[in-house]
């Protein structure tokens, strides 16, 4: 069931709103809404779910205009950031809730609950209360509860936000598998670009409430529509007024490319990060494999040349970030998406 948004606007104060969003979310796919904090990701999800009413614009699900439809009649599955478990009900009762509301026969409810609990691998915990479950189990219970009503679309708000790294990884893989098995149109919100790239068929990048770009992870990575998207989807640096990825920088002999001096070399496992300073004082860094680094035979203080790898993604940099924001004191580049987002929104 596809979801389409037509010039949807919702304003709150300064942040978290969405502005003139027009997009089509394809049927059956797993789409990730991605963006820095305050970009309006959750608001967009809540608009689709009907928990927030737009100031302007229309929202339709599967061709039906649902803009004025109460969330209870939209037939959507919504998983909240804190899972919103019904604390006074057992796992099985939680999952059965939506079916009871629909007055389904008792036997049908029981069968469906059993099926859902098997799907999310919580059959053994059917009689437990939410307080007796771990974060990952609560997340799975919330998914089973949302899926039990056979929703037209499944909406997940920061599904991995509150989990520790290992559970996060497991659940990420599992949601991907679940989506492959159930094939319900799924939209999830995340601020983690790696998570989104790994799990989603499509990405929708939001910046300050506006759509920055829509496409497959590969499309967005290889052909970023703007400097914002390039910088948001991974580490970036600036050379000759262009935002580029550090692994797209080639270190060559001092007679070629843009002249620079090696200021620091950091070994990070199988990767080498080479920090450099251009003649005008701008600092940047390049990333390469250990083999590439050894072939270059360079060290701190050496003069080298820098150029962009042919065919590498690059977008004109609005303002070259100052040295302090590209390189921290220990030489590790500071390029977290949130920092980039804030730097650009200032």
């Amino acid at each position: 069931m596809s979801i389409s948004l037509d010039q949807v606007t919702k304003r709150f104060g300064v942040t978290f709103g969405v502005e003139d969003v027009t997009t089509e979310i394809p049927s059956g796919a797993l789409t990730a809404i991605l963006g820095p904090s305050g970009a309006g990701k959750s608001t967009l999800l809540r608009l689709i779910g009907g928990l927030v009413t737009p100031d302007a614009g229309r929202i339709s699900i599967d061709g039906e205009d649902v803009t004025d439809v109460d969330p209870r009649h939209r037939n959507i599955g919504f998983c909240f950031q804190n899972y919103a478990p019904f604390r006074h009900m057992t796992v099985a009762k939680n999952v059965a809730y939506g079916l009871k509301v629909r007055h389904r026969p008792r036997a049908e409810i029981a069968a469906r609950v059993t099926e859902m609990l098997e799907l999310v691998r919580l059959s053994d915990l059917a009689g437990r209360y939410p307080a007796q479950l771990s974060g990952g189990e609560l997340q799975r219970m919330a998914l089973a509860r949302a899926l039990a009503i056979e929703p037209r679309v499944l909406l997940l708000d920061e599904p991995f936000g509150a989990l520790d790294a290992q559970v996060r990884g497991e659940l990420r893989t599992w949601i991907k598998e679940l989506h492959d098995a159930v094939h319900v149109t799924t939209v999830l919100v995340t601020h983690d670009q790696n998570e989104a790239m790994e799990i989603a068929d499509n990405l929708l990048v939001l910046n300050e409430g506006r759509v920055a770009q829509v496409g497959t992870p590969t499309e967005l990575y290889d052909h970023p529509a703007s400097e914002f998207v390039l910088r948001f989807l991974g580490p970036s640096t600036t050379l000759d007024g262009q935002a580029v990825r550090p692994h797209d920088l080639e270190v060559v002999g001092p007679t070629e490319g843009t002249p620079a001096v090696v200021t620091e070399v950091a070994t990070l496992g199988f990767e080498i990060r080479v920090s450099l300073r251009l003649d005008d004082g701008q600092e940047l860094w390049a990333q390469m494999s250990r083999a590439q680094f050894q072939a270059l035979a360079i060290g701190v203080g050496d003069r080298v040349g820098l150029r962009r790898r042919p065919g590498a993604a690059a977008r004109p940099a609005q303002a070259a970030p100052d040295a302090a924001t590209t390189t921290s004191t220990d030489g590790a580049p500071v390029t977290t998406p949130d920092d980039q987002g804030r730097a650009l929104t200032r």
Partner: protein
Amino acid sequence: MTAAPIGARRMWPLRAAVLTYLALLVGLPVGYLFYNAFSSGFGAFWRAVTQPAAVSALWLSAKIALVVVPVNTVVGIGAALLLARRRFVGRRFLDLTFDVPIAVSPIIIGLALLLAYAPLGSWFGPWLARHGIMAIFSPTGIALASMAVSLPYVLRSVVPVLVEVGETQEAAARTLGAGAWRRFFTITLPAIRWGVLYGVTLTLARTLGEFGAVLVVSGNQSKTQTMTLWIANEWEQNYNELSSFAGAVVLASISIVVLVVLSILRSREKRLHVDIA
């Protein structure tokens, strides 16, 4: 010794002080009251509390409670939802107004009701009297006074729970298709039930125990004599100590039983659901 929590030894003077304080203020006087009520034997106690005036007073108190507690529970939950979940002009004013009845002396509430609803020389009283409603010097007046003085208890017990529980469970129920009433009865009410029960207990205790406001509006007639008024009357007017002690014991026992039942229910609930704080 090794298992004792750190500082446990230093806590005992504080514990002793608190226990002494409680004993002097509550334990000894109430114990002495019970002792006195039964000093002439159980037969005398029983005759005192089963005399017609005592029974009718207790019955009136029960009827008043049966009206006041449900009404103030519904009003309290409604107001709590309004105050905890909505932002509107005058919200803070409403919030403060609910506390007025317990912030001022009950005698003031009684006098204010008298001024507003007395059958003669008040604002609404004469109009009501023409329509056959005696709002003051009647059981209706006692119910009004009891409602006023026990107004905020449910509200004050429920608001913090509502705030703590948050709205996402209700939002989740809504996306699952539940309408407003179903959400209230299946999600909101179970989530706040202990707050409600606590508020109901306090409302009941206050209603049964109220003296000042009720005294003003009762007009001191036998048909408007609640248990507290009867106890005071036996003591002050009839010099019948045993009756007043016995009545006091009955009233106190009711409240104690309610508190004990609440605490048993709660501890059983805690064993069933680990989540109930």
